[in-house]
């Protein structure tokens, strides 16, 4: 199996149809496939063990992804936002690599010879120049993509996605060529994120034209929707928040073409999705929950479920707006306790998933258990109808005197306070309990800051006394990474004194 099949089938069926629009240049399935074949010849000739991308999204990322697949060499898109020492370490772990993108930075950080480095335009020119050449032998390589996890809690791990995992996800969730000719999807997630890779694969298989926005900016996003009549988009919650703010600030771009917005990658504040549902009354929203190690989406809250929850007076139905929906039909999902025992509906524990798209594999070891289940390290619970609610990372659990406390339950209560814009609960050292609850709170600028006693009373009333924070700090804003993930290790530092 090889993910290049996706582009080969699209080119076989409709070679001249536009697959990708970037910086005004339009690429058909046929021209992309020819460039990918050329790239594969160049890459095979380089002797590299990895094909890395150190660049923003562009046609080069698509050509590199499929070119690496055809060449049979794992594709490793790197996070160009990493600090120099972190990036240098990753460059060392993939040597010798064929690297596309920021050649100056590679030369500075990883001068060790062996890397084969090409700036974006040079790579595309090389690939196109080699488009006519000898037929490429099929490869036996089974690893398609190697992604370094974002490492919000520890050093980045090298997650391996095999061709079979990614193809299984695409074939199991998408009907080939199912997108009408007018559909176009705006992709603004970075190429080193699993959502960025899944967007390329699924859009090309569905034949939904891809509109790349390499550097996200809310006004540029709105302008591109209007100019290309985008019908679909994928955003992380932070992006949606900034788009809503731009519209509120007076941006009047014509966004009437937008039929569907999918989001994921971080916690979506209830208030924001409620506001977006009002602001885009004719747009279908989908919340996708997935991980790098699961080849993207494993659970989905669909458009009808969003609208039903948004309109409902039933608290249980309404609460589903804060869920990540139900597992895909191709995925098995269980909640388990620390001993690995399956928990009943309603009980919080660690989320385990199983399915052909689930890799659960790192370069160093596989995290799958003997029956093929992957422990996600995400905590969550299922409601009576099987909707999945996330409750932070399993590692984020606060253990106070032997009692497990999920940060999410405390944060949810704090966010009901009118003056609180954002809140995080973390473990703080406690002489009495080992760990206790510390909360970091960001207040709305137009409200008075609530007193510590008031917040403690709120939590005590709504939860119980063990949840009451021992430490409270007020901050202007909580620390997030660029994908909208809360950096809890940074929050914990607020309490180190």
């Amino acid at each position, binding site marked *: *199996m090889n993910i290049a*099949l996706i582009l*080969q*089938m699209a080119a*076989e*069926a409709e070679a001249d149809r536009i697959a990708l629009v970037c910086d005004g240049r339009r690429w058909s399935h046929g021209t992309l496939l020819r460039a990918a074949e050329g790239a594969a010849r160049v890459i095979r000739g380089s002797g590299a063990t990895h094909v890395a991308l150190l660049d923003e999204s562009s046609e080069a990322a698509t050509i590199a992804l499929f070119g690496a697949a055809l060449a049979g060499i794992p594709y490793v898109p790197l996070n160009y936002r990493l600090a120099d020492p972190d990036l240098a370490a990753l460059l060392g772990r993939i040597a010798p690599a064929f690297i596309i993108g920021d050649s100056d930075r590679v030369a500075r950080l990883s001068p060790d010879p062996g890397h084969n480095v090409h700036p974006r335009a040079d790579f595309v020119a090389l690939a196109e120049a080699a488009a006519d050449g000898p037929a490429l032998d099929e490869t036996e390589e089974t690893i398609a993509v190697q992604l370094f996890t974002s490492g919000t809690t520890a050093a980045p791990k090298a997650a391996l996605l095999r061709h*079979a995992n990614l193809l299984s996800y695409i*074939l*199991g*969730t*998408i*009907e*080939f*060529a*199912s997108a009408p000719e007018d559909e176009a*999807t705006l992709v603004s997630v970075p190429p080193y994120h699993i*959502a960025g890779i*899944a*967007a390329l694969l*699924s859009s090309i298989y*569905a034949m*939904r034209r891809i509109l790349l926005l390499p550097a996200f900016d809310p006004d540029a996003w709105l302008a591109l929707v209007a100019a290309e009549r985008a019908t*679909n988009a*994928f955003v992380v919650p932070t992006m949606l928040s900034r788009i809503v703010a731009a519209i509120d600030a007076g941006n009047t771009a014509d966004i009437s073409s937008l039929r*569907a917005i*999918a989001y*994921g990658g971080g916690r979506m504040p209830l208030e924001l999705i409620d506001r977006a549902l009002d602001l885009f009354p004719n747009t*279908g929203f*989908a919340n*996708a929950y997935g991980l790098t190690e699961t080849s*993207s*989406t494993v659970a*989905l809250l*669909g*458009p009808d479920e969003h609208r039903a929850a948004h309109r409902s007076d039933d608290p249980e139905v309404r609460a589903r707006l804060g869920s990540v929906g139900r597992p*895909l*039909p191709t995925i098995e999902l269980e909640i388990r306790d620390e001993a690995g025992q399956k928990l009943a509906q309603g009980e919080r524990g660690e989320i385990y998933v199983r399915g052909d798209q689930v890799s659960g594999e790192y370069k160093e070891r596989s995290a799958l258990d003997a029956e093929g289940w992957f422990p996600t390290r995400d905590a969550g619970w299922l409601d009576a109808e099987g909707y999945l609610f996330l409750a932070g990372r399993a590692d984020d659990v606060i253990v106070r005197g032997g009692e497990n406390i999920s940060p999410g339950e405390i944060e949810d209560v704090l966010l009901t306070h009118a003056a609180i814009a954002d809140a995080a609960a973390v473990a703080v050292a406690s002489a009495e309990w080992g760990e206790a609850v510390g909360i970091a709170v960001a207040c709305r600028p137009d409200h008075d800051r609530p007193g510590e006693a008031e917040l403690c009373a709120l939590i005590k009333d709504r939860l119980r006394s063990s949840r009451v924070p021992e430490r409270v700090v007020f901050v202007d804003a909580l620390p997030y990474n660029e994908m909208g993930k809360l950096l809890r290790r940074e929050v914990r530092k607020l309490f180190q004194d």
Partner: protein
Amino acid sequence: MKPGTKLKSVVCDTEVMVIRAGEGVIACGGAPMAEERPAERGAIDPAFAEGTRIGKRYVDAAATVELLCVKPGQGSLSLDGVALQTKDAKPLPASD
């Protein structure tokens, strides 16, 4: 035969990828499919000449075999002489 194997029709342009492998003889246009196409193409059996469509998945009634058509042709697919049917996937909302 295992998942991922590509089979070619010996009587038309059809190519399929095996998604689920089972027992029995997979044929296209009435002739058993092969991993390599012979130099000379045989004739299509008129009983199996409805054609294949790219991107469609083909299954037998018991769902023991599933094939994805990756190149279309004039023949149609069968397992042990019984025509395969297309499988309609329940579409999910676009999520990425």
